[in-house]
């Protein structure tokens, strides 16, 4: 009878001690907008386009899983609101005209700001 009372109390105290112990651990969070995380070079953020290198081969358009994200006619158009940042286009561009950047804060009030459109040489 007494044992059935003591056992749960013992376990509860063990749990509480674990919680207390965690209070003294080092901080794991980051105050985000003020402090930012240091990103690795591999990080896949916004795609950057270099028109001087592009040869208009359209391979990037062919490998892009989000269809319609890249459109190449007279201009090179990329719609970041559709892009899933997989970097397939960067990997398969034969001339290295596309690069990944570490930019990831793309939220905006205006959808048109997310469409990048530039003429090709």
């Amino acid at each position: 009878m007494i044992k059935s009372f003591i056992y749960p109390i013992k376990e509860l105290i063990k749990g509480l001690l674990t919680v207390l112990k965690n209070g003294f651990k080092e901080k794991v969070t980051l105050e985000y907008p003020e402090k930012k995380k240091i990103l690795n070079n591999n990080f896949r953020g916004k795609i950057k386009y270099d028109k001087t290198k592009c040869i208009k081969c359209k391979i990037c358009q062919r490998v892009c899983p989000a269809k319609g994200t890249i459109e190449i006619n007279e201009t090179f158009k990329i719609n970041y609101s559709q892009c899933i940042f997989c970097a397939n286009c960067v990997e398969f561009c034969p001339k290295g005209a596309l690069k990944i950047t570490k930019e990831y804060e793309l939220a905006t009030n205006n959808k048109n700001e997310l469409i990048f459109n530039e003429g090709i040489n």
Partner: protein
Amino acid sequence: MMKDSNGIMTKTSEHTMQINVGPQHPSTHGVLRMLVTLSGEQIIQIEPIIGYLHRGMEKMAETRTYLQYLPIVDRVDYLSGFFCSYAYISAIENLINTDIPIKAKYIRTLTMEMNRISSHLLWLGCYLLDLGATSPLFYTFIEREKILNIFEDLTGSRMMYNYYTFGGVKRDIEKELLIRIKKFSNEFLKAVQEYEDLITNNPIFITRTKNIGILSKEDATEYSITGANLRACGIQKDLRKDSPYLIYNNLEFSVPIGTISDSHSRYIMRIKEMKESNKIINQCTDWLLSNIEDNEINTKINPLTIKPNGTSLGEVESTRGLLQCYIEANGTEFPNRIKWRTPSFYATQAINTIAKGFMLPDLMAIFGSLDIIMPEVDR
């Protein structure tokens, strides 16, 4: 009168009531609607209604090339993307008869086992949150964050990896990262011990989970349930042991099995599985550290040119059970058909059998313990 999801009316006694749990319920881990018939607080019947998270993964494949479909595959189960990638890629590697280099095999095993831990940690935190405990969520996320940071540095993304490629992996793993993984795996057992101190013998947790939601062996096999849910019933079935893929032959690990599959023993199974995964991680990092000069990580197949022919099945023991990807190829760059067999789908169907007869407040304790994730069910 009682109405089911198809609008069919059946006659019931006066004292039953029908309520909707979900689709917008914080504990359904996605969007699942459960039509629950109650008598007082007792559950008489549950009808799971799925499809709220359907994204057309299988249809999408038909209009995309094999390469274009690759980044999408990670999203079949976004908590354990590596497993989905592996199932898809191994099916294609079978079709084009490629054998991947040994280092790639080790890297794939390492990443998948880390993925298993990260997914289980999220499950553990959220499950306890469903039961009303808030602190474990923060503690499990500390460790999970370490894994995701490692993944981010290795693959470039925290959850949508796009890291495996046909014939290997995309990037080599650096020594500094391996040392970080080693450090993580050394500290991980201490963290698991902490969770166990906090949870396993906690009287409230035990009253809420022990002998609640019992899944019998017969029901489990009838519903084709796999993974930890099945092993908790005492059936030893794990693809890593039954037909070892990659390098699971060379690794030392055991597959934990239970006796009665109630919510508590399913929890124990997952805790034990994390410990075993940690052993595998340790062995893989040791091998990779001693073979750091080996640079061969893929077979340099050009993914733009693959045009497989025939049918193939890729399978993997994922976090939630047996995950299969069936591909029917027709010699062009587009597949004819891709079919996913996802373990959560089967577990969802069994919810009526498992939870019938228990109280409504137990429903989330049962549902959570099955580790169901909705994107995988609906895909």
